[in-house]
């Protein structure tokens, strides 16, 4: 049986060039943060009506993807699929770095980011936000321990148990993220119990898409073999998850459409919302769900690496659109404070709220992505996260060996 050998990636010009580019993006984002914090948020597109904007869209996407990125490792250790086991360290690493990037964006957009210590020491335990602070930091610790059990030979025996704890933890974490919106009774777009499980399935889809892209990019850049066996298994799984998200989106909207009181907000998102309607149908459903499904499962495109990579990228773009429609679309639709009445006021009662993101907000969002990628690249260089080869002969041999062991038993 061919044993999987994990090695650090070699540095070289490409590595430093990548870090330089990512560093520049991070620097730009930090500059944007200084600008926003120094002047106050009036320089952004966020206001008293659209309270959470582009930074939150990026942050929520990254955080949701983070918990989903751990899926690959969980399938390996919790569900015992041996083919996924060599991918587990990268999966755990990506989970941590995606979360770090998302949290960085979230914290840097706070009105008082200097009070982060307050947020970490004073807790109102009825608030899901307070629970999330514990869930997010705890996730990093647990996945850190999980990585330790995977990389340190003496700790390997604990890998299964810690993996199980990590798996449960991330389910609770993603439920918590969905509940941020699900618990809001005030807004019709959010007050739905389905938000929690929908976010879980979204995490499966976004996390795996990011993992797939990072895997392909890492192996391309380091010229290591990535065989079809691994790749096709992952892309089929991605297709399943994309289908799962489609189901939940369908269920969410169908249920909303049945209740007359929600007809207003549904008409807004599905038909009259301008940018939101376009993002929903064209980007989220079309480009982000249906086209990737076609690309991933069609016999000819499903075998092409570039098509698989394209499909994963489209899922990510569709995911951003989905989070944008949820977070910002939900705020754009006027709050129904006076059901049955038309309202006007100096505070945009009854009016659809427009949002135009400013450059500073977008830079901050991209800085979060850059933090994730830079941290991943540095970790891959310092520690042995990547298998030297994920070629078919490596993986198939392992599967044969496992089958042989089973047959002998």
């Amino acid at each position, binding site marked *: 049986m061919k044993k999987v050998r994990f090695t650090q990636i070699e540095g070289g010009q490409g590595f430093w060039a990548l870090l330089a580019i990512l560093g520049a993006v991070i620097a730009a984002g930090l500059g944007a943060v200084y600008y926003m914090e120094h*002047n106050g948020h009036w320089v952004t597109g966020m206001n008293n009506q659209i309270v959470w904007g582009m930074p939150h869209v990026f942050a929520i996407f990254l955080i949701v993807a983070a918990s989903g990125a751990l899926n690959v490792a969980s399938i390996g250790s919790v569900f015992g699929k041996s083919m996924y086991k060599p991918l587990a360290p990268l999966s755990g690493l990506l989970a941590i770095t995606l979360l770090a990037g998302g949290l960085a964006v979230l914290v840097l957009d*706070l009105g008082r980011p200097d*009070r982060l210590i307050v947020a970490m020491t*004073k807790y109102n335990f009825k608030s899901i936000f307070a629970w999330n602070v514990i869930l997010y930091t705890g996730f990093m610790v647990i996945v850190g321990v999980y990585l330790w059990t995977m990389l340190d030979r003496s700790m390997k025996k604990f890998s299964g148990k810690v993996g199980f704890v990590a798996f449960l933890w991330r389910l609770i974490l993603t439920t918590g993220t969905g509940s941020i919106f699900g618990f*809001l*009774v*005030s807004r019709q777009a959010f007050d739905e119990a389905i938000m929690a499980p929908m976010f879980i399935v979204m995490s499966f889809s976004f996390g795996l898409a990011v993992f797939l892209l990072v895997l392909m990019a890492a192996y391309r850049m380091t010229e290591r073999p990535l065989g079809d066996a691994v790749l096709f298994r992952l892309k089929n799984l991605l297709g399943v998850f994309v289908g799962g998200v489609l189901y939940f989106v369908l269920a969410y909207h169908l249920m909303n459409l049945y209740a007359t009181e929600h007809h207003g907000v549904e008409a807004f998102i599905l038909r009259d919302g301008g940018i939101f309607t376009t993002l929903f149908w064209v980007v989220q459903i079309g480009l982000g769900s249906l086209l990737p499904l076609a690309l991933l499962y069609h016999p000819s495109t499903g075998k092409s690496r570039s098509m698989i990579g394209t499909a994963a990228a489209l899922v990510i773009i569709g995911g951003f659109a989905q989070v944008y429609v949820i977070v910002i679309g939900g705020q754009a639709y006027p709050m129904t*404070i006076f059901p049955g009445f*038309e309202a006007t006021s100096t505070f945009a*009662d009854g009016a659809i709220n427009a949002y135009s993101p400013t450059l500073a907000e977008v830079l901050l969002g991209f800085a979060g992505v850059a933090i994730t990628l830079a941290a991943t690249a540095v970790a891959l260089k310092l520690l042995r996260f990547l298998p030297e080869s994920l070629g078919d002969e490596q993986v198939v041999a392992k599967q044969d060996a496992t089958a042989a062991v089973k047959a002998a038993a």
Partner: protein
Amino acid sequence: MSEQKHPDNARREFLTQGAKLAAGVSLASGVMLYGVAQAKPADEAVTSKVRWGMLIDTNKCTSGCDACVKGCNDWNGLKGHGRPSTDAQWMRKVDLRNKATGSVHSLPMLCQHCENPPCVDVCPTGASFKRPDGIVLVDKHICIGCRYCMMACPYKARSFIHEEVTDQRPHAPRGKGTVEACTMCVTRVDEGQQPACVEACNADGHKAILFGDLNDPNSEIAQTVKTYATTAIRADLGLNPGVRYRGI
């Protein structure tokens, strides 16, 4: 000798009037002192024996009038920066038209000081809190500016401070990066006065806002809400706001 003196009417008159005057003066000053003394002592903590509330009679509100808003802005030092989308509004007038019947109404909308405030539930640090006497406030010392309470408020009562603030009123501290809302003029209420919006509305002659202790069965507001039909906005949410309305 049983000489019955005639009652000296003039003197009797004088004494009676004098007594009345004395009684009146002492009563009046007693009443005045009582009114002022109704404020709780400064060193006493507030308790849930009192629940401050407001009753707004929308029949007395007209569409163009915003005396209450001006009174609030003035007392709390809220200055506009010509940026209506980001300028703070603690109180606003809302004009309503019933889609089915066509009737029009106007009412002020402000923090409803709910008994079960969603903003308090969602605040991660506990900065958004409810005092025992029902007034919902933001502790700006620990507010991190996450704006989750703004997402959660069913009345859009809260504003985020989007720019640096200077020349604050000493009784209304406010600063960049924190969230704020109507405080029911808590510094005034603690001293036995009425909120600024109530005073402004009364000064303008409309008297549309009644302020008082909902827990005191003898208070005017408690008796009014007991006698007449009043509504809570978005009552189905079960928040039991301290601000109730008539005529809507």
